[in-house]
């Protein structure tokens, strides 16, 4: 073996692609919210991981502690996340975009530290599990069906199918929402809030709606994160994950929901591929190399295609 030999075997395995698919769908849904805020409303939200945490923890706590049905806990967690979005937005969305960004990052950290310290509810840094029984029943049912295709042993495949369907539906839904008169007002606010207000639009109300919908999307992403690992703990809601969402956003292109799909697949193929590829390096070096490479890809993109893969260059240049 030469020291530079690299094995690409991992890209041939189904396990790998199921894993990548799940992460891409989870963080894709997560990034749809960022796209709505950043790409279409001009509101910088650095707290998306916080909304994801609220979604995941609310669902888990309601099922495990309150013993509510899993299927009821899902919509309940969306409502809680949206309420959190309103609570964050009400006092701070009147601030300039950069101040709001700071508020959101602080909010996400408050949520994470609460999860670490409210041990009776969240299990602290030990995390919380055992909330996915109802989903596993559904999953088993699907696996029986998949068995006839010889895929009965792919334990995560049902979750992947659900995640892809949900991601697809939400992307298309957001796309049509953006094409509506409602979406047009959002874009006007992104361009120039005062112009929108001078034309009779209540910019503040629209920004609140934008952040609440993003929070709901973050909560949905939180479910899939939780179901993927069958377990949640505070480290999964590190601010880092918000910024991975931004990497997806920039890769795919601002103001294009389909760019989110593309960006999420590329980012997670890169991240997971590098993690599992047989590199002649030790584990800590590979871990560092992943983010070095993502950084290089982003730098390259900024240099040669700053609008991202599906973004519109004119919108970027013209939008002052």
């Amino acid at each position, binding site marked *: 073996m030469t020291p530079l030999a690299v094995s690409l075997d991992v890209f041939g395995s189904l396990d790998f692609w199921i894993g990548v698919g799940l992460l891409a769908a989870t963080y894709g849904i997560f990034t749809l919210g960022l796209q709505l805020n950043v790409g279409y409303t001009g509101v910088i939200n650095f707290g998306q991981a916080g909304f994801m945490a609220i979604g995941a923890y609310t669902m888990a706590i309601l099922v495990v502690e309150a013993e509510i049905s899993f299927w009821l806990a899902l919509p309940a967690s969306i409502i809680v996340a949206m309420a959190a979005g309103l609570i964050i937005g009400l006092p701070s969305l009147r601030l300039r975009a950069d101040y709001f960004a700071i508020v959101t990052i602080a909010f996400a950290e408050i949520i994470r530290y609460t999860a670490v310290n409210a041990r009776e509810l969240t299990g602290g840094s030990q995390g919380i599990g055992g909330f996915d029984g109802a989903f596993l029943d559904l999953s088993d049912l699907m696996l029986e069906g998949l068995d006839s295709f010889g895929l009965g042993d792919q334990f995560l495949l049902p979750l992947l199918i659900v995640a892809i369907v949900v991601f697809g539906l939400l992307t298309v839904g957001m796309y049509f*929402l953006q094409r*509506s*008169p*409602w979406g*047009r*007002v959002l*874009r*006007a606010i*992104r*361009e*120039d809030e*005062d*112009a*929108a*207000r*001078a*034309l*009779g*639009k*209540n*910019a503040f109300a629209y920004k609140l*709606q934008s952040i609440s919908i993003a929070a709901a999307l973050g909560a949905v992403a939180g479910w899939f994160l939780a179901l993927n690992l069958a377990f949640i703990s505070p480290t999964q809601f590190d601010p880092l994950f918000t910024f991975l969402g931004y990497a997806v956003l920039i890769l795919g292109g601002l103001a294009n929901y389909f760019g989110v799909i593309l960006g999420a697949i590329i980012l997670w193929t890169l991240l997971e591929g590098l993690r599992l590829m047989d590199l002649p390096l030790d584990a800590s070096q590979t871990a560092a190399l992943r983010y070095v490479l993502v950084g290089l890809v982003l730098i390259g993109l900024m240099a040669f295609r700053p609008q991202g893969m599906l973004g519109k260059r*004119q*919108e*970027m*240049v*013209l*939008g*002052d």
Partner: protein
Amino acid sequence: MTEQAEQDQAPEPAADAGADGDAILAVRDVAKHFGGIHAVDGASFEVRRGSITALIGPNGAGKTTLFNIVTGFQRGDRGEVVYDGTSIFRRPPHVIARRRMVRTFQITKALAAMPVIDNMTLAAPDQPGEKLTGLLFRAPAARRREKEVHERAHELLDVFGLREKADEYAGTLSGGQRKLLELARALMVEPRLVLLDEPMAGVNPSLGRKLLDHMHTLRDRDGVTFLFIEHDMDVVMAHSDEVIVMAQGATIASGPPEEVRNDRAVIDAYLGASVGT
């Protein structure tokens, strides 16, 4: 039949334009200070319904601040602003705009990264599709309204000579075209009163003349009232029915252009009065 006949005539009540001389806008003793600077200090005037009224004054007289207070973009310290019979003092801008008072800005606010047509359709009032609940429960009404709005937008773009630019980004327009777009967009709101902040600034003379022609047409045909800030005295004298003069935050004179032109206080304000008199 009668409805048809009515539509064939002026769509807005042009009949009362200037007939009884009532005020569409009354500003009374408005003041606004920033720290120790009294930007507006006791401004009072009225704008007659159906008139084209100019607001003039030396730089720093407080004209734009007054505009901002009237349209809700800044909160006045004291005073009263009555529009069409109701007080709008300290009301938020979008509420004021929905009462059909629109403004433009000194530095044009064309929404650059949006197509021209979207700039126009955005401004239309009463679109149920602008609310999430409206999208869900009143989708057919939203679609119908959208069709009307597009027709109206194309009509106006035709009038303003921007038809072939409809699908281009507003950011690709020239400065003068942006001013025209901003006025056209303001008209989408179906305004009763339009406030223009230096509409002629940075516009080439032929486009400027076009803009002024539109202003007269809209006033004569639709009964729209205009209040505009302008520095070009030839334009003010030739195109306004009434002139309001501000200096150092206060209104110092108002009346027909020829009268204001010879007003002692106005001449002093522009040329500098002798100190201490």
